[in-house]
């Protein structure tokens, strides 16, 4: 019976669930993932892959953080010889590349998205779980390529955006820039794969009743981000591929002597690069929009304006890229246009800010640990946002271009917009992932150490920038009088490092001996809290239905559950994108080693192409064989029972 049809009272008893004590065992047998090393590489459970994304991204965060600490040690005093210019160039390039491509997007979009979205939709697994697994291995391959490059003295040294002509064949011989460009291919193919999985899960696997206007804001944001990834990431793949072609086979896209153009690279890069900022920031905002109503014990104020703001951000985010290029001498008219667009994008972010404030106002606020990080976000991101408004103005931007003022601005935006919500989200969903609560006292130590250290380091950089200290210089003369501020900025790193160490102790300790909690320790409203902590392999014993925007808060005492999905095969429910009317049943393809094998052949081809173009024709047949192996149907036929199959056209 479709969920939208009213159930007549006299039929109610006939439609009540009959408990089946054997059901969990049967579902577990069908849905469990294989064990052992082979099984580890065959795993297609979104929860396992989501956690792998998060753990791997966090390891890269630690590595990127170590590089940041080295940078600050070098700049602590003038004419320091701790790092030479070549090592310094590699280290600041690796720091930026690692933090953006290997940490921020994989953690905020892929990690959180892959783990949470299917649970929040009430689905048994993510759509296309094998593509999802492949995306993880390719991401890992890209990260390993970059870091093995650094450890073999082939670390990229051309800045995280690898501008030509510096990164072109004339000025960067060797393979350092090639490694950067091919790392982009790995990580972007991965992000694109996850975007397809997440968008399809949201549009096709939402619980019956979770219509578009009842969808949690987090799902709205993940949908918008996925679509942004789909339209933005191809630009950086085109930019990095053309760069590779210029370097490896002698094309001339960016060579002005042969009709190429240097600014073309910047246009292509920033057409990706600015939406990327929102691809990093919107996941953070989605965590804030989830946590604020939970800890204020009330519905979020202005659901519709927030959703409209998120969609508006997605659109306007594609129209501001030239503000990264104000110093390149573009026509004044285009500069004015992009100034206006850059100011305009403040409006939807401002709307969200005011609505969060409005939700908190006069609420019964519970200042638990995740909420502390939310307040940290408000403070830090607001400062970054305000300096962003200043930088939208061409004269100011031109004045402080390439100085530490910019470094301060984007660290306030990115650490404020991503790292603070990340810690909030990790503490919030930790009990769901592990079944145990993280320690609140250690968490508060973590917060204050990190918050104070962060502001010491980066607020100081505003002044350094206004006093003219340029970015990307490995040292400076004492005559410049930057040493005091530089030493202050460097001192904050010790506090931040201590904070992150406390976090790691907390996570390891709480994982082993944290307080065991029930399904919904925070009393939150969304569906992932309606199953056990941690969730079983099949996510929900009975897939849920939804009766309002706040699924668990609005649930009726006898809220219907979905029955009739087979438990001997991995059957999933597909619902309509708009009204979530159940449409048909699909089958999860189950665990497979082929995505891992495909990632090996694809990685070998990508890495080989750095050294010779013949890697493409030589590498293609193994890639094709592994893809056919992956897609060739095996086992039982798609739907052998019952009797005649019923199809919809």
């Amino acid at each position: 019976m479709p969920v939208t049809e009213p159930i007549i009272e006299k039929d109610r008893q006939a439609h009540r669930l009959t408990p089946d004590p054997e059901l969990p065992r049967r579902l577990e047998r069908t849905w469990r993932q294989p064990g052992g090393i082979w099984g580890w590489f065959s795993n297609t459970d979104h929860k396992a892959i989501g956690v792998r994304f998060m753990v791997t991204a966090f390891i890269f965060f630690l590595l990127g953080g170590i590089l940041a600490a080295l940078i600050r040690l070098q700049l602590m005093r003038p004419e320091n010889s701790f790092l030479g210019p070549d090592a310094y160039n590699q280290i600041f390039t690796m720091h930026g590349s690692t933090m953006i491509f290997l940490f921020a997007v994989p953690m905020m979009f892929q990690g959180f998205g892959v783990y949470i979205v299917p649970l929040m939709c009430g689905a048994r697994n993510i759509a296309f779980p094998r593509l999802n697994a492949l995306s993880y291995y390719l991401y890992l391959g890209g990260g390993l390529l970059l870091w093995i490059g650094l450890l073999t003295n082939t670390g990229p040294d051309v800045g995280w955006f690898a501008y030509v002509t510096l990164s072109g064949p004339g000025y960067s011989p060797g393979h350092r820039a090639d490694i950067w460009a091919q790392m982009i291919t790995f990580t972007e193919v991965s992000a694109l794969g996850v975007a397809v999985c997440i968008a399809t899960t949201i549009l096709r696997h939402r619980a019956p009743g979770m219509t578009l206007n009842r969808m949690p804001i987090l799902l709205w944001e993940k949908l918008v981000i996925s679509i942004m990834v789909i339209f933005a990431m191809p630009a950086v793949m085109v930019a990095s591929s053309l760069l590779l072609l210029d370097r490896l086979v002698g094309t001339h896209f960016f060579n002005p002597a042969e009709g190429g153009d240097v600014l073309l690279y910047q246009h292509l890069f920033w057409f990706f690069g600015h939406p990327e900022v929102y691809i990093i920031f919107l996941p953070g905002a989605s965590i804030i929009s989830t946590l604020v109503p939970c800890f204020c014990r009330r519905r979020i104020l202005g659901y519709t304006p927030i959703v409209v703001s998120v969609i508006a951000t997605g659109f306007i985010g594609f129209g501001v890229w030239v503000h990264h290029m104000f110093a390149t001498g573009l026509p004044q008219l285009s500069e004015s246009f992009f100034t206006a667009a850059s100011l305009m994008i403040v409006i939807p972010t401002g709307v969200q800010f005011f609505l969060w404030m409005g939700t908190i106002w006069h609420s019964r606020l519970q200042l638990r640990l995740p909420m502390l990080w939310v307040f940290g976000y408000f403070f830090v991101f607001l400062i970054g946002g305000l300096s962003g408004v200043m930088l939208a103005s061409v004269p100011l931007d031109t004045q402080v271009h390439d100085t530490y003022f910019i470094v301060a601005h984007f660290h306030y935006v990115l650490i404020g917009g991503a790292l603070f919500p990340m810690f909030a989200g990790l503490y919030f969903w930790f009990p769901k992932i592990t079944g145990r609560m993280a320690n609140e006292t250690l968490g508060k130590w973590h917060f204050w150490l990190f918050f104070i250290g962060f502001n010491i380091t980066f607020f100081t950089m505003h002044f350094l920038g206004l006093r003219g200290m340029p970015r990307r210089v490995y040292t400076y003369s004492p005559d410049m009088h930057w040493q005091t501020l530089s030493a202050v900025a460097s001192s904050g790193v010790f506090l931040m490092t201590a904070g992150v160490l406390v976090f790691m102790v907390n996570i390891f300790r709480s994982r082993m001996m944290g307080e065991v909690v029930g399904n919904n320790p925070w009393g939150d409203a969304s569906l992932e809290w309606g199953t056990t902590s941690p969730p079983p392999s099949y996510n929900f014993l009975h897939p849920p239905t939804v009766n309002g925007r706040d699924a668990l808060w609005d649930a009726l005492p006898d809220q219907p559950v979905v029955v009739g999905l087979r438990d001997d095969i991995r059957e999933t429910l597909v619902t309509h994108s708009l009204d979530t009317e159940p449409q048909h049943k699909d089958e999860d393809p189950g665990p497979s080693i082929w995505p891992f094998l495909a990632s090996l052949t694809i990685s070998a081809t990508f890495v080989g192409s750095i050294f010779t173009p013949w890697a493409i024709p030589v590498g293609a047949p193994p890639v094709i064989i592994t893809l056919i192996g992956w897609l060739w149907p095996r086992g039982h036929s798609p739907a052998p029972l019952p009797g005649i199959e019923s199809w919809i056209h």
Partner: protein
Amino acid sequence: MDSLREPIRPLTLDVSNLPSVAFGELNTTWLANVFYMAIEGMMFALMFATYFYLRTRSQHWPPGHLPPAFKYGLANLVVFLLSLIPARLAQKRAPAGDLRAIRIGLAALSAFAILATVFRIFEFTVLNCRWSDDAYASTVWVLIGLHSGHLVTELIETLVLLVMSFTPKMEGTRLADVAINSDYWYFVVISGLLMDFVIYATTRFL
């Protein structure tokens, strides 16, 4: 009192009678295919943008080359347009499980795709430029290379489905895959037509 202590049993939404295969826009793979066409369409769009951007940086276009010769491009245009017929046939008959029509459609589509690939190899020989000549030549080669990658990928996919159509595995969701494969072929044809317009027409008429 006993009934009060007993938890209320939830109502149920029984989906056991729902169909297990969907065609067209209801199919989840159809949606993923649309997303991948958007991704690859974006790459074509950016390469076209690159082409016209570089054109604004040059006084002559093509700079010091003759425009690419028509013949193989034109032949491929005809092949692409004719190939739409078997692609549509396979797509139209897939929901009915008409294996004969599917085999004919996929075999003809494979033949057209092989022919298009052969013509494409010759097309590279009459472009009147080499990729390393200048930025214009690089763009032409990369555009055609990008499209050729799609062409060969689609050829392999069609061949795999053709082989599968002679095994018992061609049923249920695989029939939906046949229909989706035709959608992707339309994408290859449309992007090929746009590319031909950019490479052959704009160099002569615009």
